[in-house]
């Protein structure tokens, strides 16, 4: 029989030879993802608005894994800087195998206190940037084996989250977009999203309006009784980018401790 139905890949989760662009990689989840992907064999472009953070992650990852990294400052709301990111990635690694649209930001806002300008800026940062960067990368991705785009979604984009109205709407749109991209980009390029639950990313969560008491109640509400670690998300990216997921596209993988149904800010009662 020419076709072996039980043929198993030697290293299904290996990313040997991949060049991966990660936005927002100076932060906790993006940084852990850069680390895990490099450990699995990838070279990584670490893009962040904050160059210092990007450089720190790039240097740490390179030292720990021996893989090549490139730190670059990118304001993803700027088309010029997006193009510069793609150009720099191609110049450094000669190809782009995977794009991770990880950058995103939102904060607590009372439902009716959001201005049109604020809402538009949220869409520009969380949704439109991912659309345009995907568009810029697509011709380069199409040339690579098992190429993919993966999106950092959020649990607030899947259930009513009036506390984060601008952010949650933008994330919902982003998730929907990932399915549309998937439908049109095969068979060369896969597109998936990770629906991320409440991850302990240090200061960033506190800055978004949570206090430690709220976070404890949130953790207790999850099936697995803990908030996520950045590495929990990073390993999911590893799976979705790898040959192991070669037949996976258009999915929303929830990595949320089983607790996404309670994604809203918990109150004391």
């Amino acid at each position, binding site marked *: 029989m020419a*076709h072996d*139905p*039980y*043929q*198993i*890949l030697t*290293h*299904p*989760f*290996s990313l040997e030879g991949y060049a991966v662009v990660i936005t927002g990689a100076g932060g906790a989840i993006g940084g852990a993802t850069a680390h*895990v992907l490099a*450990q*699995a*064999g990838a070279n990584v472009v670490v893009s962040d608005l904050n160059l210092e953070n990007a450089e720190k992650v790039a240097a740490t990852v390179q030292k720990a*894994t021996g893989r090549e990294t490139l730190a670059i400052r990118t304001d993803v709301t700027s088309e010029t800087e997006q193009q510069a990111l793609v150009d720099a990635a191609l110049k450094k690694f000669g190809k782009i195998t995977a794009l991770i649209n990880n950058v995103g930001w939102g904060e607590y806002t009372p439902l009716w206190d959001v201005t049109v300008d604020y809402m538009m800026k949220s869409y520009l940062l969380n949704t439109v940037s991912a659309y345009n960067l995907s568009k810029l990368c697509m011709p380069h991705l199409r040339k690579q084996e098992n190429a993919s785009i993966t999106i950092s979604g959020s649990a607030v984009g899947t259930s009513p989250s009036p506390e984060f109205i601008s952010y949650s709407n933008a994330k919902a749109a982003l998730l929907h977009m990932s399915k549309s991209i*998937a*439908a*049109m*980009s*095969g*068979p060369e390029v*896969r597109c998936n999203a990770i629906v991320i*639950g409440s991850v302990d990313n240090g200061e960033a969560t506190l800055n978004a309006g949570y206090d430690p008491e709220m976070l404890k109640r949130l953790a207790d509400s*999850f*099936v*697995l*009784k*803990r908030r*996520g*670690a950045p590495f*929990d998300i990073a*390993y*999911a990216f*590893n*799976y979705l980018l790898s*040959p*192991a*997921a*070669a*037949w*996976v*596209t*258009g*999915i929303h*993988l*929830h*990595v*949320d*401790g*089983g607790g996404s149904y309670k994604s809203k800010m918990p109150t004391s009662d």
Partner: protein
Amino acid sequence: MQALKPFALDGQVAIVTGAGAGIGRAIAELFAQAGAAVAVSDLKKDTADEAAAAITAAGGSAIGVACDVTSAEARQALVDAALAAFGKVTILVNNAGGGGPKPFDMPLDTFAWAYELNVFSVFHLTQLCAPHIQKAGGGAVLNITSMAGENKNQRMASYASSKAAENHLTRNIAFDLGPKGIRVNAIAPGAIKTAALASVLTPEIEKAMLKHTPLCRLGEGRDIANAALFLCSPAASWVSGQVLTVSGGGVQELD
């Protein structure tokens, strides 16, 4: 090789039902390769033994167990056999299942049988294994369901609704077993090139299926096995209650 550690199953003991062929066998073989000892269960004893022997020959650890998962006694015997051979159970893969298009006028027994096979057996085996998985320090239950659990079509009332029940069983049991350190997830496969599918697949049907599949090919056993390994490995330690669709991005239906 430290990079691949998160996806390793060293020291784990897995029960995989329906593992004599197709998707189940691919899962059993990959889990063994990832370091788990595997109880390979199949309706037919010789098929189970053959799959277990292939794993052992490749340097893995496995036993073959005959099990009709619709029999409560056989389910208990399967768990007992795994415990006797390997001393513990940490992973249960409920892969055995089946059914297909049935006319709306089917006898009620036919309808009930889909639930016996695809829902009751899964629930009871999970009930039987949970205390042992908890005792072993936690682990994972994985249910192999079907895209049919989401699709809508004629003549699919029994099979598709039973698979939808299995999906929702997964989401709910996750809450029961989470506090015991047991994660519960499912994979909903699209059309996978197995012997079971080959019996009904024609070139015309395949062509129609691929028209609705962004990745332009049907699935292989290993596509599901890889997803299964991810979900049962430490890499997915914060993932529970999920139904992961592995379908090439599309919907494949027989008609």
